[in-house]
């Protein structure tokens, strides 16, 4: 038995000897009572110590959580039982009574009772609500080591060093202490009597069974949660299983294995297992039914003292010399794998099932794996091979083994795997369609095996390899404890290596470009060449991960679903209330498996990570879409954007003016800043704005700010620098008005206004300065008047020497009229995208309208096509097989010939396999193809068909490079891809009917609309030629092909007529008008016919043929459609109706029914004889019989063949 298999340690603590353990029933907490008198409260999930309780004196041996209340109880060597509240973090009260060490304490599951076992040989039951001793159970004659309530019945079981286990009936006690609802007198008497008998200590709790069998002291005993079973552990190193009935109890069996005192034991809460722990440093797991050892977990140095089970989830804890460990017996991660839209997984019952993401349905059981591995060990991994529909399952049982099984086509209930191949190995995965790799960790080899389970190659992986994963085509990812290697299977060497510790799982992105390496607390994202892209750390365990289609990794921890982008930005998507394993994310749904291996769908809001992703990819449209369509607001995203340097994008989200202002300033968006500043109107903001605007050189905003701030000095200076003299003088006036002389002086100085300055000096009695100013500017009169005013003479003054008078420079450029070149980037790419998007939207609207129009056109076209003649002779289609050469004989020859010599190529077969001209063309048999066409539709002029012939021929051959030095191998492309019978294979046809209708035909329409008839004509002819050499898949498609031919022929004729008209000399007025009229006859689409009619109407009007024009106008109005055309027609109509006469006589009878001869462009009136082209149906006067059709330019007019064959 391997010690390593199965044991999954989840938490370990270091402390002194742990004597008592209790799991919290709901929270991830565990209480540990220590030999050192401390009680610790741990969060085993986070690995943190929550609290310590230190009121006991000496070792604390027993501890238990209350099931519902925030309470726990402890009992220690100080003889005290203490009840604590972990909320208030203090001891509520102490129960005294025991006379020696207390070994165990347990709460009752529903009554307010505590049971305790003590070295004073008694077991006592206490009421913790009224804090009283209810009952003392005596009988053991040595230390009572353990006492527990039965989880349902009124029983207590106890173990003692007197080598016995006792079962006590406490129903009497319950009766006595249950709430006295309505008690009769008798009851009361009874009760009083009971109380009395209680004095003898026998009726409340009576010994029901004494179980003797251990021949040393018994350390622990426990009830089974549901069955009438008891398990006990003793110093005789044995684990004993006991069964009891109503009347008796007996020993069932003994589990032997511990080689030192067994200190603790319990039943597995959900499975038929017994767990025991002992001083031999082992934890042992036993099969309850067979009493055989299932697992042994050995610890190096520490003796185990106690073991406990979590009541709900699959967790256990054991206390030893140096602390506690929390562990699981088995992995709860269901083995699963995803292929396209299917999840394959293994249930707890070891059934392989699949789940369809799209349909959200589980399949029935595909396969049962009951026989795989040991019954107690679930399979570890599942690898799926879609091309073989096989699964590869590994299990850690028996030292690791794998099994390769083909899945049945359909699930048909629990079918046991019949056809399976198995072998030893720790990991096994498919690496190619027909290969899988198996890792054997003990021998450190990797074998590559084929589907027959034969080893095709084998190699030594890097030292210490613990696991292998798929590494992209032809590669393996080899996991060692400290690194991941990308290993090339073919070359047998490591091609890349990355140092990552403890990788446990590898998750590939859907496009195979990235992989996420999951270890306990880290996610490392690598490229397919094993270059590290990013890494992140979690404080709690990472359980699973899956990739979004857009390249976002979603991963689950114990309690969250989180995301990370390739650049390492991450965040929380949602919280989890139970552990799940993610398998797929699609839109708002996260698909996962829970611990019971049931597929579940979690709803998430992907907005945040999609937005961040769009931001990283600079996909502004996507961002815009998200902004417009979802409620992505909140401080976090703004902070994120700001932090990432996208204030301009953050700006789009914010409504709050202050924040908006800040952001606008930050990204230099002055317009928004101004708007916000106006709204808020605070001096501080204006100041900041002015500084920012000045930095941008946007002086008009600066001006506004200064005005708002009433910052006159700065404003004046701004006007000076911008050369705005008008405003500067107004500033001077304002200064004067305000009586601010300094300001006035400044403005005068800026303006160079000497008089004003002198005047000002005089006003404030600064005559010396006034005089000096006047003098220096040579204003003598002014000087004199000042002297007069002051009563001084010039001689009395002591003047300094003057320099040149200063004058402010005159502005050269009127800068104030426009801003300086401003700092760029005021508009972000994003905003541009926003603007662009707006335009785009309107464009889209337009196209949508166009699209609708087109649809309508198509509809009308369809109608028109349906209108088209269907009276074609259908019987003709079945003929023309006479030319098919006798294929059978030659073919059989090839099959049977055995020796050398060349065979016939597939291309030759095509001509034999098909009666269609196109298949002969593809096979290179041009002569027979021409023969066929000649017979079917009377083709005689093949020259125009040459490009089509070569096109078809060329399309069917590929060139496969094979051996070096030899020409490529020619292979033949088929339209019958599934077919491999050489008698049925047929070549691929380029530009099939569908392609022609959706590409060439649309191009032709477009050119028609654009009035580009010169280019349009060849397009329609080309359609005719392409349909002629073509094949279709069904009879209904034959009809469609005929419609296409008719339509193309009508357009060809129409365009030919109009082109002829345009080439006419202007003098040939009559013919011009006739051709314009005939242009309106071919059955082209209504919008196009409108164009023809408009053209004819305008021409007629211009040449005063009002009567004819009137008929055109009427036809236009009857057709309806574009209002513009209709308006024109209406106006023409009114004009024509005033004078319904024709100036030029033309051969065009608007009331007669006729068709246009394609050769002469003259009318063929209904009833007259005509000839036609057997292929395109164009009509001719009889005299053209025997000429080449002018429409298709291939067939002979009047030659009636067997009809075009397009479908074999």
């Amino acid at each position: 038995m391997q010690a390593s298999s199965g044991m999954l340690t989840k938490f370990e603590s270091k402390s002194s000897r742990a004597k008592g353990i209790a799991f919290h029933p709901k929270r991830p907490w565990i209480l540990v009572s220590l030999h050192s008198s401390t009680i610790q409260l741990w969060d085993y999930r986070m690995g943190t110590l929550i609290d310590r309780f230190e009121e006991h004196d000496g070792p604390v041996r027993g501890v238990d959580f209350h099931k519902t209340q925030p309470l726990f109880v402890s009992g220690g060597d100080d003889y005290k039982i203490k009840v604590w509240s972990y909320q208030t973090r203090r001891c509520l009260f102490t129960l005294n009574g025991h006379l020696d060490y207390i070994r165990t304490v347990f709460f009752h599951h529903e009554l307010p009772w505590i049971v305790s076992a003590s070295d004073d040989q008694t077991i006592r039951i206490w009421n913790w609500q009224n804090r009283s001793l209810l009952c003392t159970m005596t009988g053991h004659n040595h230390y009572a080591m353990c006492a527990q309530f039965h989880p349902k019945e009124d029983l207590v079981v106890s173990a003692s060093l007197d080598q016995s286990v006792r079962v006590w009936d406490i129903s009497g006690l319950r009766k006595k202490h249950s709430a006295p609802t309505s008690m009769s007198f008798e009851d009361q008497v009874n009760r009083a009597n009971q109380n009395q008998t209680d004095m003898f200590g026998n009726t409340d709790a009576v010994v029901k069974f004494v179980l003797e069998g251990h021949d040393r002291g018994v350390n622990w005993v426990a009830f089974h949660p549901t069955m009438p079973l008891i398990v006990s552990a003793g110093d005789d190193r044995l684990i004993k299983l006991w069964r009891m009935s109503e009347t008796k109890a007996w020993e069932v069996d003994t589990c032997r294995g511990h080689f030192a005192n067994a200190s603790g034991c319990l039943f597995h809460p959900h499975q038929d297992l017994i767990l025991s722990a002992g001083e031999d440093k082992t934890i042992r797991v036993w099969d309850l039914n067979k009493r055989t050892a299932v697992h042994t977990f050995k610890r190096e140095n520490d003796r185990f003292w106690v073991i406990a089970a979590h009541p709900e989830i699959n967790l256990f804890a054991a206390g030893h010399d140096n602390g506690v460990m929390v562990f699981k017996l088995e992995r709860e991660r269901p083995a699963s794998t995803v292929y396209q839209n299917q999840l394959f997984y293994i249930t707890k019952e070891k059934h392989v099932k699949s789940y369809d993401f799209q349909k959200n349905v589980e399949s029935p059981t595909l396969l049962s794996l009951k026989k795989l591995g040991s019954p107690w060990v679930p399979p570890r991994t599942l690898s799926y091979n879609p091309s073989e529909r096989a699964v590869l399952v590994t299990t850690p049982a028996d030292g690791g083994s794998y099994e390769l099984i083909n899945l049945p086509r359909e699930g048909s209930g629990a079918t046991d795997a019949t056809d399976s191949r198995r072998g030893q190995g720790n990991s096994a995965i498919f690496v190619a369609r027909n290969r899988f790799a198996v890792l054997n960790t003990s021998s450190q080899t990797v074998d590559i095996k084929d589907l027959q389970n034969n080893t095709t190659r084998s190699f030594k992986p890097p030292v210490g390899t613990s696991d292998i994963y798929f590494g992209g085509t032809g590669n393996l990812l080899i996991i060692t404890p400290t690194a991941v290697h990308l290993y090339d299977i073919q070359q047998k060497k490591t091609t890349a290596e990355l140092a990552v510790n403890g990788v446990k799982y590898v998750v590939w992105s859907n496009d195979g470009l990235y992989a996420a390496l999951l270890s306990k607390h880290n996610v490392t994202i690598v490229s397919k060449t094993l270059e590290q892209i990013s890494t992140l750390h979690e404080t709690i365990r990472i359980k699973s991960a899956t990739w979004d289609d857009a390249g976002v990794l979603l991963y689950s921890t114990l309690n969250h679903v989180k995301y990370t982008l390739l650049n390492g930005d991450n965040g929380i998507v949602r919280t989890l209330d139970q552990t799940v394993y993610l398998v797929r994310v699609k839109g708002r749904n996260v698909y996962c498996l829970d611990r019971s291996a049931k597929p579940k769908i979690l709803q998430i809001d992907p907005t945040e990570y999609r937005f961040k992703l769009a931001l990283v990819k600079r996909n502004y449209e996507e961002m815009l879409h998200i902004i417009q369509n979802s409620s992505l607001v909140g401080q976090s995203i703004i902070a994120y954007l700001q932090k990432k340097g996208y204030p301009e994008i953050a700006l789009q989200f914010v409504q709050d003016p202050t924040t908006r202002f800040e952001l606008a300033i930050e990204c230099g968006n002055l317009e928004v800043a101004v708007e916000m500043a106006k709204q808020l109107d605070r001096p501080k903001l204006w100041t900041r704005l002015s500084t920012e605007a000045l930095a941008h050189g946007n002086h008009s905003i600066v001006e506004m700010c200064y005005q708002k701030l009433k910052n006159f000095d700065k404003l004046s200076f701004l006007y000076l620098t911008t050369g705005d003299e008008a405003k500067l003088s107004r500033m001077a006036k304002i200064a004067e008005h305000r009586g601010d002389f300094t300001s006035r002086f400044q403005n005068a100085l800026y303006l160079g206004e000497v008089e004003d300055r002198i005047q000002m000096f005089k006003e404030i009695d600064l005559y010396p300065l006034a005089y000096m100013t006047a003098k220096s500017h040579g204003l003598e009169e002014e000087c004199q008047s000042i002297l007069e005013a002051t009563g001084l003479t010039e001689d009395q003054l002591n003047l300094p020497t003057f320099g040149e008078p200063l004058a402010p420079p005159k502005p050269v450029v009127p800068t104030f009229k426009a801003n300086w070149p401003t700092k760029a980037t005021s508009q972000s790419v994003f905003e541009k995208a926003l603007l662009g998007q707006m335009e785009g939207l309107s464009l889209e609207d337009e196209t949508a309208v166009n699209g609708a129009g087109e649809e309508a056109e198509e509809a009308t076209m369809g109608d028109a096509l349906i209108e088209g003649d269907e009276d074609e002779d259908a019987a003709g289609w079945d003929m023309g097989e006479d030319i098919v050469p006798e294929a059978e004989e030659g073919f059989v020859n090839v099959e049977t010939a055995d020796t050398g010599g060349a065979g016939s190529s597939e291309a030759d077969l095509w001509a034999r396999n098909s009666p269609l001209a196109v298949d002969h063309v593809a096979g290179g048999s041009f002569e027979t193809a021409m023969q066929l066409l000649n017979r079917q539709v009377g083709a005689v002029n093949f020259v125009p068909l040459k490009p089509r012939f070569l096109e078809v021929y060329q399309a069917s051959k590929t060139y496969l490079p094979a051996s070096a030095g030899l020409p490529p191998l020619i292979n033949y492309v088929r339209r019958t891809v599934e077919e491999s019978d050489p008698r049925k294979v047929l070549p691929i046809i380029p530009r099939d009917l569908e392609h022609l209708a959706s590409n060439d035909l649309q191009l032709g329409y477009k050119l028609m609309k654009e009035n580009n008839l010169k280019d349009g004509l060849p397009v329609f002819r080309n359609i005719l030629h392409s349909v002629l050499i073509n094949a279709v898949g069904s009879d209904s498609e034959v009809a469609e092909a005929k419609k296409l031919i008719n339509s193309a022929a009508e357009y060809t004729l129409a365009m030919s007529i109009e082109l002829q008209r345009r080439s006419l000399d202007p003098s040939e007025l009559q013919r011009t008008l006739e051709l314009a009229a005939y242009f309106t006859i071919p059955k082209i689409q209504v919008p196009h016919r409108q164009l023809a009619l408009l053209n004819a109407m305008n021409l007629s009007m211009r040449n005063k043929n009002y009567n004819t024009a009137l008929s055109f106008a009427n036809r236009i109005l009857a057709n309806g459609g574009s209002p513009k055309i209709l308006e024109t027609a209406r106006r023409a109509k009114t004009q024509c109706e005033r004078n319904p006469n024709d100036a030029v006589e033309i051969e065009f009878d608007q009331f007669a029914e006729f068709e246009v001869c394609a050769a002469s462009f003259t009318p063929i009136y209904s009833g007259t004889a005509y000839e036609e082209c057997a292929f395109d149906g164009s009509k001719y006067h009889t005299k053209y019989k025997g000429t080449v059709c002018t429409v298709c330019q291939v067939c002979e007019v009047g030659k009636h063949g067997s009809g075009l064959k397009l479908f074999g």
Partner: protein
Amino acid sequence: MDPYSAEGELINIHNHFHQGQYTEVVDFDVSSLSAENALPARVLQLRARIALGQAEDVLADVQGEKEPELEAVSALAEQALGNNDKAVEIVESLAQSAGDNATVQILGGTVLAAAGKSEDALALLGKHEGSLDAVALIVQIHLQNNRNDLALKAVTEARRWAQDSLLVNLAESWVGLRLGGERYQQAFYVFEELAQAPATSSVRTLVSQAVAELHLGRTEEAQAALDQALKKDPGYTEAIANLLVLNVITGSKTQQELTSSLVQANPEHPLLTDLNEKSELFDKAASKYSAKVSA
């Protein structure tokens, strides 16, 4: 031990060669090889250089060498330089003197097959004793002769004794692409596996993958693979040729430029010669017909 087997020294260089990774072959470090494998390795490198268009250098390199292997290489080089007759001459004399030599068989077979003497080539290759190279050539020659049945036989036989070999996989895929049906997909798997793994990817495997996709009717994927190939080597003729074919199938219109680049890369390419031939055939056949009345 067979040096080309999975455990042999030459497995990697040999695989590189057949995956069309000629540069890797030339750059392969042969210094550590044991003495008996030095010559085969050299032959592989010389062949790779010929494939890379360095036939003249190779010819100079083997000038005056007397080993039949190297003489056979010289024949291959001569043929690559266009001296077909001389090449055939050398091979014919080698076939007499050293017809048992595996290298002579393979290179001789290649030269003869390329010269159109497929029966002689098959006769020479038929002498092989468990050489997969020879089997691959035999398969290809049969396919060229449209003897799919014989090619299939050869490859099925080889699979019995060398099932995981690269060459058997390749040869089987060649046959698969000819036979079609389910085998298209199988061939595709083989080529894709080679083309998409960085260690084995080459222009040749990419084009092979594209061809398989084309046969499977997956034109978009084929386009992607061809683009990938042309990115690696814009002058690779088979990539251009197959892209031409693909464009015809999808009805794209960018043919002129491609055709001229194909003419530039290899004016003798079967696609071009075939097309010219057919063009003449067309004109001849079309001339037999005319309208009763000329307009």
